[in-house]
């Protein structure tokens, strides 16, 4: 199978500090891939590098056979990559509808059935009621729904989700994760960065575990054992029991 998005020896960092040491991951259309790892393992950095926020060489990121690494974020959007950023990063002082409108007005060319306000409202019905509310007056879960909806409306082929369950009540997390299959059903590839390992395992088909800027484990989510994850998560010297 041909990967929709793949990284090749991806190295990136902040100034002189290198945070990623040659990352190789890939994802197919309609697939959900989870990225797990401890704080500081480089998961968010990887998403930022793919999104074009951090500088990388062109051939380090391939999208549909084209080298796209190092493009500015707004050009990555046009190429078909979107991110649900860590901490949601909604446009404060603007309503739910305006936040979504920004994405609609700067979207990529849709491939397949396009995402519309109606589809986003069908996915998260509460947003229809709150359309005119300023985003800062929403609950954390509702804000996360706006953030996901906003990123869908740029019509991505690959959606990078950075810790979408962080700080939310378990019930809200279930509600948000229940919406994910409807997103991938249309062929969108989903990369989930997730702190909750068992949630990540259940929600994904494959997973990658990262440690100190390297991929230490990869495989089908249903086949990987907790012992394998522990070893990959904490390093080879840490063994449970």
């Amino acid at each position: 199978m041909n990967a929709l998005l793949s990284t090749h020896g991806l190295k990136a960092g902040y100034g002189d500090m290198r945070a990623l040491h040659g990352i190789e991951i890939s994802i197919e259309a309609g697939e959900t891939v989870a990225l797990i790892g401890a704080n500081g393992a480089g998961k968010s950095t990887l998403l930022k590098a793919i999104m074009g926020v951090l500088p990388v060489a062109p051939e380090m990121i391939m999208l549909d056979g084209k080298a796209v690494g190092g493009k500015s974020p707004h050009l990555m959007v046009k190429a078909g990559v979107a991110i649900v950023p860590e901490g949601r990063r909604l446009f404060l002082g603007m309503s739910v509808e305006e936040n979504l409108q920004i994405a609609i007005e700067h979207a990529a060319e849709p491939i397949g059935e396009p995402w519309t306000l109606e589809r986003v409202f069908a996915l998260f019905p509460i947003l229809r009621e709150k359309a005119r509310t300023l985003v800062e007056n929403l609950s954390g879960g509702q804000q996360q729904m706006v953030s996901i909806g906003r990123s869908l409306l740029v019509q991505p082929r690959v959606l990078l989700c950075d810790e979408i369950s962080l700080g939310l009540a378990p019930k809200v997390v279930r509600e948000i994760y229940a919406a994910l299959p409807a997103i991938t059903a249309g062929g969108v590839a989903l990369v989930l960065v997730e702190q909750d390992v068992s949630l990540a395992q259940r929600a994904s088909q494959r997973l990658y575990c990262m440690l100190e800027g390297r991929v230490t484990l990869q495989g089908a989510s249903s086949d990987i054992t907790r012992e394998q994850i522990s070893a990959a998560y904490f390093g080879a010297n840490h063994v449970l029991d």
Partner: protein
Amino acid sequence: MYWIDGIVQGILLGGLYAQYALGMALMFGVMKIVNVTHGDLVILLALIGISLADLTGLGPWSILATLVPIGAAIGWILQRALLNRVVGDDPLPSLIATFGLSIALQNAMLQIWSADTRSLSGGAIQQASIPVGSLYIGVLPLIVLICATVLTAGMAFLMHYTRFGRALRAASADVEAAAMMGVNPRRVYALATAIAVGILGFAAAFQAMRSTVAPSDGPFQLIYAFEAVIIGGLGSIWGAFTGAMILGISQSIGFRINPGFGILAGHLVFLAVLAVRPQGIFKRKS
């Protein structure tokens, strides 16, 4: 009546300050750039206008109509060539860059136009006034005020009801997030500065018609714009308009208390607002 006249004249003066302040509020609101060349750009445009009038014999309104696109072009180039390189979380690089450019511009203008004061002939309209009761309202200042109001309303409309305005506000709220939603920040910034300096085309023509301009006048215009923006609340469009009115009225009342006190009165009100309500009168939602 003496004091009412003071307030009316102050509001009319505020119209001119509002035209200075609008572009500054826009640039600060969107990019957090304090453009130190703001006043020099007014003077530059005014001098270009005066020279154009001398060369071509165009009337003041044609000059105004020419200065606005010239201003917009200057703004676009300024942003693309200089400010996009220094804009960022740290306000210092843009402050230093525009400060340096301000000095360079003033010297270049001195070289080209000499230190003479000049003005643009507005024809009969310059002296015309409308009697209202026992007050006289100058026609030109009234046009300036109407222009400022329309420009401010137009800008507020642009910010809230257009694609470009929404992109501006998104970039203002979180520029990195805006870029991740497909907004090209450099393009939005260049357009914002083009609009800001384009508006100065109005201010330049009116300034040259109402009084005189000389190459070293820029910093005064900068201070008025800056004070209006601070009084109103940094980055707020209607706040800048209100701040300009308050500054105009303060100066006008000050002049009537003592002719030497006018400008100082404006500064004192500015300092008082800074002490009592440092976030400005219109606190920006954030």
